């Protein structure tokens, strides 16, 4: 199902709303990750407002597509996308990481309906998604399984055990998405532990590989469609994204991996002004696309 220009416009607008909510929730939480969630906002908007077969009012719907998030630390983007899609009130996002919340710092399956699995420890999401896809295929289920992961967790051997398993078993009902933003906690991925040529590595493990600009919503949706047409292999979409996308002071800066607004690097914006400044920047950007009275 290709995506129309009108739909792309709606998804882009949703992505901006999601980014605003991410900043608001991180400011309220006082901890959490900023760069990854902002960088994946376009892809999560595409999933929740176009790609996924799902029902926010019935998260346990049998025939829903399943989305596994391996790098659980970017869960603010998932929570924000779910809230805007109608799973729960957007205001609940402000409970992120607080005592008693359903929105745990790293997501837990049993706490929040719609979260398919518990994740955070890196390198475990692809194998879980592969196991789920394997079980679904045994029973001839038609839904698709999506496994989202980071590039940093390609360092983990467990990721490659899972890649080998999915390739060997030709799990064509599984589509993996790698957030290729080139940063991890200790620096740039190619300095910490070089990953390239990552596409060739997956090809060698019997995967169909598609590389896209992760901020080009149409291209990303097309890649997801292409994956559905590949029957002999699992597909991985390597989505090249800009960490911190949408806020130029955060973009490309690995120091924002694990810092929330208010506790990030202060060489550009003073700590106490970061939250307010970033929201203003996002709202201005939003103003360029829609009427400022929106």
């Amino acid at each position, binding site marked *: 199902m290709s995506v129309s220009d009108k739909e792309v416009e709606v998804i882009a607008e949703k992505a901006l709303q999601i980014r605003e909510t991410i900043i608001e929730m991180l400011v309220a939480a006082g901890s959490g990750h900023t760069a990854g969630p902002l960088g994946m906002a376009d892809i999560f908007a595409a999933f929740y407002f176009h790609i996924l077969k799902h029902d926010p009012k019935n998260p346990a719907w049998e025939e829903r597509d399943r989305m596994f998030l391996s790098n659980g630390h970017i869960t603010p983007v998932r929570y924000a996308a779910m809230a805007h899609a109608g799973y729960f009130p957007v205001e609940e996002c402000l409970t992120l990481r607080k005592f008693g919340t359903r929105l745990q710092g790293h997501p837990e399956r*049993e706490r929040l309906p719609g979260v398919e699995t518990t994740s955070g420890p890196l390198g475990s999401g692809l194998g879980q998604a592969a196991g789920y896809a394997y079980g679904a295929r045994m029973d001839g289920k038609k839904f698709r399984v999506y496994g989202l992961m980071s590039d940093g967790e390609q360092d983990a051997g467990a990721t490659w055990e*899972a890649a080998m398993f999915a390739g060997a078993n030709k799990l064509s009902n599984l589509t993996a998405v790698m957030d290729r933003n080139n940063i991890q906690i200790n620096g740039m991925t190619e300095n910490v532990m070089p990953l390239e040529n990552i596409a060739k590595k997956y090809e060698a493990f019997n995967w169909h590989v598609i590389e896209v600009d992760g901020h080009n919503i149409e291209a990303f949706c097309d890649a997801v469609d292409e994956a559905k047409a590949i029957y002999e292999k699992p597909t991985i979409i390597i989505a090249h994204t800009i960490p911190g996308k949408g806020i130029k002071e955060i973009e490309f800066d690995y120091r924002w991996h694990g810092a929330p607004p208010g506790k990030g690097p202060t060489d550009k914006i003073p700590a106490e002004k970061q939250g307010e400044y970033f929201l203003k920047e996002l709202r201005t950007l939003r103003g360029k696309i829609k009427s400022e009275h929106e």
Partner: protein
Amino acid sequence: MLNPAVKLASNIFDKPEQKPTRDGFGEGLIEAGEKDKRVVALCADLAESTRMLPFKEKWPKRYVELGVAEQNLATVASGLANYGKIPFIASYATFSPGRNNEQIRTNICINNVPVKIVGSHAGVSVGPDGATHQALEDMALMRVLPRMTVISPCDSEEARKATLAAAAHNGPVYLRLAREKTPVMTTAATPFELGKAQVMWQPQDKRKNPDVAVFATGPLVHNALVAAKTLEEKFAIVVINIHTVKPLDTKTVTQWSKKAGAVVTVEEHQIAGGLGSAIAEVLAAQAPVPQEFIGVKDQFGQSGEPGELIAHYGMDVPHITAAITKVVKRKK
């Protein structure tokens, strides 16, 4: 005397049948698979020695091969369980739950999905393979995980029943198995209930309080029974089989510990973190009594024959009788 209520084998002290607990698992897995189509088997390149092979041959489509990849074994199983299957995952206990401990913690226990972890080749009785393949800390690793049930069957027949109970239990389970042939003590008629400890040996005069309560788990239950029989004329002894190490049957443990006033624990595992520790945790709070620990004392195993290793590490019958004698003395 043997407790007639648990219907133990009549030849228990006279050339009992010898069979490894892993065999009972293999039989139980087939039965569980027949009872419930959701049961699937996953293995990390050890189908024959973990006794998963008959299941694979019977239902090749319900068998999933992972290769030598224990982290992925636990992780793929968590996905299958999340989907709705009941996965049994088998390897050697040193690798699963040894190597893949974090995957079990996060993907299985925090996730709360019903994966059954089957760790074979536990204990020094693995023998010639040596320390690398002799799991002595697996119960400790599994016992500290919330939501995990830990079962350590005493013989092949009990392992068969434990496998069926594990399949029926809606939660994560660790099932501890041994490589070596060991005496078959229980029979098809012996009751088995998860979490329920079993009196196997009791004083002749049931009204009299015993001098000592021996809590044993795994195939060493047989050594504990032989020790009790050896000391029959000297002490009134109760021997209790703790097949479910977690959740521990605290009611039975405290009841008999209070009656006896002295306790010996027996396990083929590090003393730190195993059955003895679990019982000491309960007794320290609820019924403090002298306790002696039979188990491995902060050492690794080594190559050798099973019998000589059990003796070397202090878990044979003479060590158990000595511990019983010592703990009774400590009461005074």
